[in-house]
């Protein structure tokens, strides 16, 4: 099985970091994977996106043009990528910032008010982790098992104090039901 | 029988290709004498430029590297960073050091690379046949300034010692000349000091040697030396422009 994930949003929303968490989770599960960021001036305030492919076989092209899973962190990202999602795929919509509904009926859609949930936790910058949690809950590519191990790889020792809040944010998303 | 005069050990037996009356021969000798005096021939690596001294690698008996035009300070930086215990010098002309290699010169100086730079300023491109150099004097006639260097068109000469002295980096900057015995003796002292600075870890030392080019200046060797005294030295005053070697030693 190969799952192509596209995470898209504003620069600063932690799109690349969210991709890294998923990548390490895949690595710890013994899967093949690739992580590819958009790069350049976009990093600084424009749109940012990140392609993550998780597979049982070696990954071919690391570029995700037809995602199986789309995490849309803002409206421009949903506008841009909604039509690209494979039929039967998943769209996770950050519903605090995106007010409109997904137009398509051939995909599974989950509305997650991640920014609000993160704010309620006192960690407004962790909406990305809430979405990661929801993705793990809804997508068969990855499991919740040993999540801490993967997170330890990504949250550096320097920021060890942020580990618990990141874990909490992921679990908040994982357990969120609309 | 006592030997009272001989060729420095640090020069090979190769016959120099320089023109009659050219002062490169003197400056080669001063560099070689400094290497001999300090007993460093076995650990010295020289970097030759592009210009009249391009084949200096045949004349110095130490290991030698031939650099691209202007890049000698960068090449020397690589060598010195690789072999910090060795002694590394560059031997460059004015076109090489002050024109095409200006960036390499300034940055090696500002990094205070622990190397020795011998800068031969004869105010002209010699090897290519006498074109205007960055150090050609205002009004100086060359192949590419046939009506004399017009500063309104070609700008002013570059004064390397003065320019580099504005940097915090370099350890030692001195301008000398080789147009008479007194100046040659002084140049010998300065060049030796520049090598000693490196051995003592004091950093970037550059000796600018005001030199002559009878062939391309269109003068007899004697007249050329006179021109150095009357025209070059007034524009490029001799002396020490920066000396941090004492403070570094503290």
């Amino acid at each position, binding site marked *: 099985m190969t799952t192509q994930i596209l995470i898209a949003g504003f620069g600063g929303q932690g799109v690349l970091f969210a991709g890294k968490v998923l990548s390490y989770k895949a690595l710890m599960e013994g899967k093949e994977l690739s992580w590819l960021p958009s790069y350049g001036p976009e990093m600084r305030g424009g749109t940012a996106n990140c392609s993550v492919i998780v597979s049982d076989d070696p990954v071919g092209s690391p570029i995700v043009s037809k995602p199986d899973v789309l995490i849309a962190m803002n409206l421009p990202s949903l506008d841009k990528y909604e039509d690209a999602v494979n039929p039967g795929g998943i769209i996770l919509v950050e519903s605090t910032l995106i007010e409109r509904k997904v137009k398509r009926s051939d995909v599974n859609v989950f509305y997650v008010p991640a920014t609000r949930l993160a704010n309620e936790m006192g960690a407004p910058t962790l909406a990305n982790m809430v979405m990661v949690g929801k993705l793990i809950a809804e997508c068969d590519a990855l499991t919740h098992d040993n999540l801490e191990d993967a997170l330890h790889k990504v949250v550096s020792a320097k920021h060890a104090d942020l580990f618990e809040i990141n874990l909490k944010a992921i679990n908040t998303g994982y357990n969120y039901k609309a | 029988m006592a030997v009272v005069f001989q060729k420095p050990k640090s020069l090979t037996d190769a016959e120099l290709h320089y023109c009659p009356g050219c002062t490169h021969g003197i400056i080669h000798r001063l560099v070689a004498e400094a290497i001999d005096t300090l007993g460093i021939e076995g650990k010295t690596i020289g970097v030759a430029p592009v210009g009249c001294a391009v084949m200096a690698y045949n004349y110095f008996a130490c290991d030698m590297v031939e650099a691209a035009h202007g890049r000698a300070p960068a090449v020397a930086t690589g060598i010195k960073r690789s072999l910090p215990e060795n002694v590394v010098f560059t031997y460059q002309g004015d076109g090489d050091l002050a024109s095409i290699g200006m960036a*390499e010169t300034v940055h090696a100086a500002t990094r205070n690379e622990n190397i020795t730079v011998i800068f031969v300023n004869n105010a002209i491109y010699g090897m290519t046949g006498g074109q205007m150099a960055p150090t050609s004097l205002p009004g100086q006639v060359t192949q590419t300034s046939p009506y004399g260097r017009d500063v309104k068109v070609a700008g002013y000469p570059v004064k390397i010692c003065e320019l580099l002295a504005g940097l915090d980096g370099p350890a030692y900057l001195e301008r000398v000349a080789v147009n008479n015995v007194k100046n040659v003796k002084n140049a010998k002292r300065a060049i030796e000091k520049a090598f000693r600075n490196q051995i003592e870890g004091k950093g970037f030392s550059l000796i600018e040697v005001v030199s002559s080019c009878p062939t391309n200046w269109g003068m007899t060797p004697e007249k050329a030396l006179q021109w150095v005294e009357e025209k070059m030295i007034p524009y490029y005053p001799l002396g020490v422009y920066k000396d941090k070697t004492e403070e570094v030693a503290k």
Partner: protein
Amino acid sequence: MAEKVLMKGNEAIAEAAIRAGCRHYFGYPITPQTELAAYMAKRMPKINGVFLQAESEIAAINMVYGVSGTGKRVMTSSSSPGISLKQEGISYIAGSDLPCLIVNVQRGGPGLGGIQPSQSDYFQATKGGGHGDYHLIVLTPDSVQEMADLTALAFDLSDKYRVPAMLLADGTLGQMMEPVALPEEHVNRVEKPWAVTGTEGKRKHNIINSLYLVPEQLEEKNLERYRRYKAIEENEARFESYMMDDAEYCIVAFGIAARVSKNAVVALRKEGIKAGLIRPITIWPFPKKVIAEAAEKVKAFVSVELSMGQMIEDVKLAEDCKKPVVLCNRVGGMIPTPDQVIETVKKIAGGNA
């Protein structure tokens, strides 16, 4: 095998270089290879190595020249516009028969171009780049794992043949992360009696030089160098064959284009079209023999490139006009999609599939 870690391609090159004994790095910032320099800046001071941000690409390659002359492993990295600036130094290094590693994480051009991935420096990398008759050994990774593995190999080949090596990657491979098993520490110690290390009064002076004013001497230098190039062509051409056994349509692609093409091969096979892929791992020497052999069996070739069609010339030379060769490409930082490759193959296959 070593435990796999997640790394960016640019970082994998840096770490692999260190493990191959490289302790000298000189560079100048440019997107999209900057992570490589940043990694070196972090690591080198801790392992008694040298990281120096040079004043320009030109200075950096000349610092490489200096270190290489002393016989030590040394590298620089840049991206397309910066590699153009280095060409002078590269020609001198080649002309002085010095080994080193130059990494080009390509971006779109010409001129300042863009910062997105490209393969449009193929000619520059394989046909010379600077002035004079010379070649680089050019290796083209297609994964983060190969970014590491081919870095180690590049140092070994460069030392062995006294020919500078280039790792030709692109922005995608430089920026992407994949699991990588880093190569073991290895230093392939080739004797370098030519190095300038100080005579110690024990030998005649060594000279690192590319100037030969006597034409007969310069000719002999060139001929000697080309004898080494011939040995490299005979022994060091590397490639991967993917589903080529019964292939009727042969895609030729390297680097990121090969990864896209692999997806296309799998998809085409599902539709009953017998496609295969030859992926050059060295583009100089170009794997001519395997292409020539394929020309006896396949119906057509498709050259998939992120350029206006540069490698396609080598494909045509290698297959000697025996079969049609079609270009499938995107440029300017765009990357062909598997669908584009599939459509190209289908179009050639026409009713024959």
